[in-house]
């Protein structure tokens, strides 16, 4: 078998195993929390009899392992269960919310990934000169400030003072694509600022590291321009570390948007998760956890696979 196919299938299998483990962990942790769904539904003042009845009704008396496998079986068939609070199907609600979150994350990624890589290349090209220092200083500043603070500062200046954008990033299905994009401009901008620095610095470091290689000297001695040397000879070899940090940040864009979504009242997964946690809606929290885990593991798996594919030794064995 081609070594690539073997390695990639290993990664896939490992990813699935990891996801399985993550689901067990999420389920176990919510089990370990004090109180359960019955308690949550009936509130603190419920009588023990009422609690026992509801537990019987909801099947909470059965062993945790049984319930876990039922729950897992449901997920595998696309059934995430029902919300406790509004009795709606969780899969439906999450579907819409996840779509919104992915839309926001994609918009931020489309801007931030090429920008980060370009800034990284630029920083290498003007290493230790003012453009490099400026890029480093600005990106480091934005990553050091908590995103909710950036969010509120942006809202204050851009929405309140200038009035260019609404401070609420509400979107719904009746809006056109352009209207949606306009609505999410501010949260996407804040997210971009948050993830830019790490990707840019990693690109810079990975390429600078490669610039010490003998083949870079060879390229310079061919009379290539600095930018040709970086783009043609250094970048292809830096793909693997760059992809890894890009994927980590994309995962963060999906999983970590909670705060930004709350600040801009954006109807995504983050809002949904925060609402459910405050309402102690355990099935929804579980479902959100699994979806986040799947996104995280999936993106990192993609990074691994891209790294494998980017390695010429694996792509073209002897």
């Amino acid at each position, binding site marked *: 078998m081609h070594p690539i196919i073997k390695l990639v299938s290993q990664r896939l299998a490992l990813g699935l195993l990891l996801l399985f483990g993550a689901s067990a962990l999420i389920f176990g942790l919510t089990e370990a929390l004090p109180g359960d769904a019955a308690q949550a539904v009936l509130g603190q003042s419920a009588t023990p009899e009422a609690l026992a009845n509801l537990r019987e009704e909801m099947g909470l008396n059965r062993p945790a392992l049984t319930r876990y496998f039922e729950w897992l079986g449901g997920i595998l068939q696309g059934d995430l269960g029902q919300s406790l609070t509004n009795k709606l199907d969780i899969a439906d609600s999450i579907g819409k919310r996840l779509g919104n979150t992915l839309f926001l994350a994609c918009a931020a990624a489309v801007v931030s990934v090429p920008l980060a890589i370009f800034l990284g290349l630029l920083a290498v090209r003007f290493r230790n000169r003012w453009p490099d220092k400026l890029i480093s200083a600005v990106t480091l500043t934005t990553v050091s400030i908590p995103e909710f603070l950036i969010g509120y500062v942006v809202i204050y200046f851009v929405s309140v003072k200038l009035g260019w954008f609404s401070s609420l990033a509400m979107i719904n299905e009746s809006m056109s694509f352009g209207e949606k994009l306009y609505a999410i401009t501010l949260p996407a901008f804040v997210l971009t600022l948050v993830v830019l620095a790490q990707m840019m610095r990693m690109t810079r470091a990975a390429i600078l590291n490669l610039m010490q290689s003998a083949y870079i000297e060879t390229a310079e001695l061919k009379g290539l321009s600095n930018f040709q040397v970086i783009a043609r000879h250094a970048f292809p070899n830096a793909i693997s570390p760059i992809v890894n940090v890009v994927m980590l940040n994309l995962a963060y864009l999906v999983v970590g948007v909670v705060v930004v979504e709350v600040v801009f009242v954006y109807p995504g997964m983050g809002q949904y998760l925060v609402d459910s946690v405050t309402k102690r809606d355990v099935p929804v929290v579980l479902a959100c956890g699994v979806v986040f885990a799947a996104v995280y593991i999936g993106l990192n798996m993609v990074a691994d696979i891209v790294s494998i594919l980017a390695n010429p030794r694996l792509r*073209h064995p002897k």
Partner: protein
Amino acid sequence: MSDTLLKVRDLKIGATVYPPGEKPHDIEIVHGVSFDLERGKVLGLIGESGAGKSTIGLASMAYGRGGVKITGGEVWVNGRDILQSSHGDIRKLRGGEVTYVSQSAAASFNPAKKIMDQVVEAAVEQKKFSRKEAEARARDLFAKLGLPDPDNIGDRYPHQVSGGQLQRCMTALALCPEPDLVVFDEPTTALDVTTQIDVLMAIKEAIADTGVAALYITHDLAVVAQVSDDIMVLRMGNTVEYGTTDQIINSPREDYTKALVSVRSIEHAEKQPTPDPVLSVDGITARYKGLNFDVLHNVNVELHPGQTLAVVGESGSGKSTLARVITGLLPPRDGEITFAGRKLSADLKGRTREDLRELQMIYQMADVAMNPRQTVGTIIGRPLEFYFNMRGSEKRKRIVELLDEIELGEKFIDRYPAELSGGQKQRVCIARSLAAKPKMIICDEVTSALDPLVADGILKLLLDLQKIEDVAYLFITHDLATVKAISDSIAVMYQGRVVRYGSKSEVLSPPFDDYTDLLLSSVPEMHLGWLEEVVAHRKMESAGN
């Protein structure tokens, strides 16, 4: 226009150094070097590390490696002073008029791109040829340089061809844009001797065919004597001697040149085997975990007390693996090792402290074999504490004795490895292994990272110490000159097997097996025309077969 292609006048090159704890300051590393190179001629630049030869070679492309800056003088290429040229003109010069072949082609090819793309890049970029013309030219050069399957080898990636082939591809890369001058920077140093001879011949023929001029940089005078018309001997950034190849080799004027010419003239009378060997290796077969083939096949050798067994072979012959088996780092699949009359445990964990003490090791890279944060005294004192429980003044006295034995002296006791030269570091490693009072030391390529004169000093020291301490050496090397200099018996290894084994005089006297013959005849000799003789001899032999 005159025939002078490259004219260097009073070239001065400097660098900024950043010593720890001191302010950064500028130092000069080349102090006013001048020479001329005519079209189609080859000038050899020779010297030890730190002589500035690579720096001068790169200066002919107006290039400074790392923080190196050209601080003065003139470099005229094709009638213009390139040190005064604009950035754009220098880019046209590099890869167009002057090209470069580096020591390690394996590191100098971009691993992510096909060989052909890299070979034609400069020619296309400099608009000397169209992509199509350049590729045709490259295939021509591949054939001329004796590469297998010249029409398709360019489609491979660098890791898919051997080191010797890659070095030839690098030569093709340099010749492809039809330059006026090629800088060859130690192009065969990283190769095995049998490969070196082919690459050397290929380079020499390519130079003759294309009429290109060349700067040939190397530390090996025997090699440069084969390819160059003139030779410049450099030492610490100064010209020592500059003359025709014939004059430098046959009638050197300066003492330093004479020392370089007569290097490796150590004479060592062979000792007779004793009845009781200190080490006997019986039928060792070994493989690495995860491999499905053996890297050692039924190896049998013996080493006698106070003598030297040289294990010689090219890279991949299994000689270092043999050392790993003897030290217990790699338990063999079959066979056993008897040391000082007792059977050694195959696994390192099963060995006694006495086993460890009596069997020491010295490595190729002295600087990574020492803890950079320990002083020389601590490094040498450690085995004294560990094996002999020495403390305080007793330990210090012994350390000073050892430092005297390795000809460094007490003043080195508080120095750190970073404050030592390469040869001094290796001496400290020798002292550390001697501190354990071993019966035997495994020396793994201990001189291959050193300059010839320094290496000579180390070999002499090892021979002297052998007389004083009566220690046996298992000497692993790829360098036959070293073998001749110090061994009492020799084992020639090839693809995991011992193909020839016996006393030095037996192994080095005819009739030879094919491999030993090839190996022996490939060692460059310090006389003009040696390369042609060997190649002609081989052609005759293959025609006769």
